[in-house]
């Protein structure tokens, strides 16, 4: 399933870029992250637990940054597996300056296989939407925190 959207941040593009490209800060963006291992600047692994309403789904997700043009564009591939589900996701975002702030256009192509996949898009779409919203809200907070003088 494909999801996409636009988001505005009251922060310079460089700040947003730094949050999005720092694996450690990325870990804080993702809901349900239980542990996070950084292999190098392009590859990292997250163990997450995603709520599915009736239960939760544990996934080990390997991320790899496959393309980037600092400070405006990056593409990531994520591959996750867990009991009952296999996740494949290609996601990308593009950052543009807008006055003092930044706009982000993002896209994600999410493929879920396994018994969880058989729940189908009708069930999974709202869950994915909710997860995306959580990520974006966390991104807002991270960007805001990055702007706050320490």
């Amino acid at each position, binding site marked *: 399933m494909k999801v996409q959207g636009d988001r505005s941040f009251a922060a310079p593009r460089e700040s947003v870029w730094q949050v999005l490209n720092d694996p450690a800060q990325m870990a804080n963006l993702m809901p349900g992250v239980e542990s996070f291992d950084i292999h190098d600047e392009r590859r990292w692994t997250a163990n997450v637990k995603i709520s599915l309403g009736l239960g939760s789904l544990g996934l080990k997700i390997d991320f790899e940054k496959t393309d980037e043009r600092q400070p405006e564009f990056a593409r990531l591939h994520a591959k996750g597996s867990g*009991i009952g*589900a*296999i996740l*494949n996701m290609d996601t990308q975002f593009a950052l543009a300056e807008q006055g003092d702030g930044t706009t982000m256009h993002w896209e994600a192509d999410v*493929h*879920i*296989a*396994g*018994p969880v*996949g*058989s*729940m*189908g*898009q*009708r069930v999974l779409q709202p869950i994915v939407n909710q997860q995306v919203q959580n990520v974006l809200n966390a991104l807002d907070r991270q960007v805001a925190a990055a702007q706050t003088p320490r």
Partner: protein
Amino acid sequence: MSETTTAPERPVTVEADETKPGFIGVSVPRKEDKRLVQGEGVFVDDVKRHAMAYVHFARSPYAHAAITSIDVSKAMELEGVYGTLIGEEVAAQTDAFFQIAPPPGGHVRDYALAVGRVRHVGEPVVAVAAATRELARDAADLVEVEYEPLTPVVDMERAADPGMPVLHDEVGSNVIWNGQFDYGDFDAALAEADKVVKIDRLHFHRFSSTPLETSGALVEYNRGTGQWTIQSNNQFPGFAVIMMAPALRVGIDKLRFVSQDIGGGFGNKICTHVQLVALCLLARKLRRPVNWTEWRTDQHTANSHGNERVFLDVEVPVKADGTMLGFRARMIDDCGAYTRYEPLGCIIWAQVTPGAYRWRNVRVDFTQVCTNKSPCGPNRGYSRMQHLWFTERVIDIVAHELDLDPVEIRKRNYIRADEMPYETPNGCIYDSGDYARCLDEALKLVDYANIEERRRDAEARGKLFGVGIGSTLDSGTNNFGQSTLVNPELQFSGNNEVATVKLDIFGEIVVTIGTTPQGQGHETTAAQVVADMLGVTPDDVNVRAGHDSYWNSHAGFSGTYASQFAVTGLGAVKGATEMLVDQIKRIGAAVLGADSTDDVFLEGGFVKRKDNPEAALPFMACGAIVNANNAVLPMEARDITLNCRYVYVPPHQLPDKERKYGNLTLTYATQIHACVVEVDPETGEYEIIDYGAVDDCGVRINPQIVEGQVHGATAQALGAATHEVFTYDEEGNLLTPNFYDYHVPHALDMPPLKTGYIESPSPFTPLGAKGMGEGGGAGLSAVCSALQDALKARGGAIVWDSCNPPHRVWEMLQNPEQSRANVRVENM
């Protein structure tokens, strides 16, 4: 389920005054039922062996993906895990399964486990064997398989498009088979017609049957003899061994198939040879018996589904009086990811090319494609159900568009009883039947005479009211020569079945049959036939339960499938019993001093002299003499064994490969159903408020068993018509993989079901009986027909799909123009 069995007012036999002494035609209690209702049946999962392993298949989560690596080490670390089997081992130790299709479709390479690539969700990838079923399942979860996802092919109508991913590289495209069928003169029919009704698209959905018992097997390997004993619920061992033996690189004598009780087959259990080969390899590798019982979700996800089919660009030439001259259509059939019984479905529909109608001009372009969905195969009414639904949709749509009465147009076009036996345009011979009379009986069952009054009553309550008709011809006793019409190189034709009947040392009458009964009551009906011929009662006849290919009651086509036991199985029983009768009479004549066998008769377990019935020799004495005291016999009677084996071979001919012409099957049982619905126009919810099913399967050996088959087939049809559907998303995920989403009707879902019958004996079969039990398709058509009638009052939507849950009915109510745009009438 409420039910009423209604006998027609007219005599049920063709010869009105004929009386039928004996047990044929009597609903004697089923011999099998005592053990079954007491829980003493022996199903495959009841059979245990010392130190046996339980097998679980790790299955593909992807519809289409390359396998990049398989790691079973974590699974093997679990205590109690005995071993695993992966695709590479299978590819090394077996050959790919024999393919029925000609090249290029025949280039499909199908193995017992996925080799290098998975092509549907649920495809077995690794087999894991462990000490318990639960452990095997847990261990399978620890198998690590790396996949590289590929784009799946999900839409059958686009599968053959250029640029689509190809499932089987060796085939070169997703087209498995394509053929043209041209009978009569369709162009002349168009020229003769007053109108042509054109239908852009009709769709028959993907669903399946749901046997109570899922597939399973217990497989043992004898290292000394190199033989496997396969205790399974496979319903067609004759086909299984043809597939398995070459794959395993052994002769079929190395494969012993055994079954006792089977909890329903419906065709689902024909193509289990794939899993059975994996089990054979595991049993040999691990040196221990292996047991596999399919989980219900796996049965839904990856067992044999029924074929999905679309009918495109349909043209129906019609005369002004409603006489239909034939049809032209382009048909696309989806066989799923692998061809395991396919592409036989590409010809089996042609057994019923014109349906129940006198349509002489037919032109069909038939294509079968593969997609990334569960493989398809035989499913109760296999391939004919789709086609017969099409013929019934055609006649109802023509009636709708030309404002003709659905009853009258059927009667105008039905093949008439006085035309039987009737040769169809493609050379099939409909043996007997009276469709118009069956329709009258069905309409009586639903009180059709008062239907308009009931319609007014329903409308006064705010309901839409509809009555519909559906028919099927349950064609049975295949001529396997039809396979040569899809692949001229095949060397199959005819059919056969075996039975042995013997009189043992203490007078026991023992019958063995080659079939693999799955609940059809073979023990009972075989006993009825034998009892009548030997002059005893069914209680005196011991029919061995189940099947064992070591019993020597096994022929190339042994099994229970394609509506044939009443012909092939009982034909073999009758033939063997005739031999035994003759031998008993010879013993009796010799011992009683009669001049010839014409001077004695059998009665009550004795051979008696006709001129002096007091002079009688008990069967027990016959058995004892031949089996244990045969030196008393004169030399000319020493050839008597009282152990008689007979192979029934139906009178089939080779079909004409060039013309795709010939008699493809022996018998045609008739089903005409009538359905009455009330629809809530606000929600599309509907209720079947009345239902009548009339069956004509020739001579009914045991009417109660026939009745049971009619009930079961009707339930299957109504489930499929109203809600059972295998739905896939665009990723090839099955969205209805279990009972949570795939609702099989239970008793409370069934409408009041009234049944009736007539008997038109087959002139071609040993007992005048016909195979039956696959006639549920009539229900699919009847529901569609009734819904279309009901929707006529609200926009006149055209019912175009075989599955119509309330949401689809609601859509047709909301937007009738959408379905109406599918159909038009052109004046010629």
